[in-house]
């Protein structure tokens, strides 16, 4: 009988903080790329039964998702997700297209641009946590899809939830600076999701424990 995945409050905080470091670096690179101030929300770390995952995300919502597999000292799946509208906005911004042109997300130019944005965000995320923990994490080349959130997330789940009944989901939302007068607040809205494999979660937790001892 396998052990059930459980986190103490302390471990949860530590993982949240680790993710926060990664997410802040990632959104900083997004801000540099777009010239727009990006806010990061407080990240969430949850252990979710596999059967409930689709209820914890807006599974039906169509989003633009970039997926990377992380290898090296830890093994995980990382998603950078944008709402359709903000994917559109980012493409227009980066490619200098006219605003309001709506067929671009899945075109070659659009999807390459989004893949690259996802790649940059993911690399910053990995660099930050690698540096913090003194380990090496290498992201795979990015792949892209624009579809229902649930369908997009299943790609990671078939791999990590094959033998597990629960998965750990780290989520950090980000959005652009609030603007007072118009409806542009969701011009950029997205989130980063990280699903570590079970054995990598253990590695991460023991590394974080070590880290805490250094400060004691």
């Amino acid at each position, binding site marked *: 009988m396998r052990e059930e995945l459980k986190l103490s409050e302390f471990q949860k905080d530590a993982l949240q903080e680790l993710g926060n470091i990664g997410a802040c670096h990632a959104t900083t690179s997004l801000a540099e790329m777009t010239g727009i101030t990006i806010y990061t929300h407080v990240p969430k770390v949850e252990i979710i039964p*596999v*059967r*409930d*995952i*689709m*209820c914890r995300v807006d*599974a*039906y919502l*169509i989003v633009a998702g970039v*997926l990377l597999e992380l290898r090296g000292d830890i093994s995980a799946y990382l998603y950078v997700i944008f709402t359709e509208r903000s994917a559109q906005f980012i493409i227009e911004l980066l490619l200098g297209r006219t605003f309001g042109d709506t067929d671009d997300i899945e075109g070659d130019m659009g999807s390459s641009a989004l893949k690259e944005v996802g790649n940059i965000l993911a690399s910053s995320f990995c660099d930050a946590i690698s540096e913090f923990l003194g380990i090496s994490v290498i992201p795979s080349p990015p*792949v*892209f*899809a*624009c*579809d*229902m*959130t*649930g*369908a*997009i*997330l*299943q*790609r990671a*789940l*078939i791999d990590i*939830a*094959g*033998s597990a*009944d629960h998965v750990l989901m780290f989520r950090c939302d980000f959005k652009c600076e609030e603007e007072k007068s118009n409806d542009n607040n969701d011009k950029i809205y997205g989130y980063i999701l990280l699903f570590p494999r079970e054995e990598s979660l253990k590695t991460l937790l023991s590394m974080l424990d070590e880290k805490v001892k250094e400060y004691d």
Partner: protein
Amino acid sequence: MIEYVGIGDVKIAHNPEKLAIIGLGSCVCVAMYDESAGMGGVSHVMLPEPHGESVIEHAERACKYATVAVPVLMKKMIVKGAKKEHLKAKIAGGASIFRELDSLEIGDRNVAKVKEMLRKLDISIVAEDTGGNLGRTVIFDTKSFKLHIKTKSYTKVI
């Protein structure tokens, strides 16, 4: 009333209830029904079969695998009053969402395994909407025994 069927869940419903799976990617929805009993069931399969470890002692929890889910769905239907010889199936899903990553071809393997299991149990598949590159949302109506399928580019009733 609509009830959601999560990954690895097997649920049974009676006329006029509905069973739904939202955002189906490479997973497969197996809908089974007995028209004369006015009931249907849905199973949400994630993988073809368990590899290596023994999961059979937790059969309920192992329903994310086609090899376990399909027989469990049939048994549950029969326990709730369906007749084995009346059972029919409709399936949907098994897409490959990340085209560049489909070396695993997990969607196709899921569909193939589900079909193999149904054949073994002698349950005929009367309709299917499988494969492709699009995520699906499916709703199974136990009144009409129709599977309502919606993707970002088409809707279909099978």
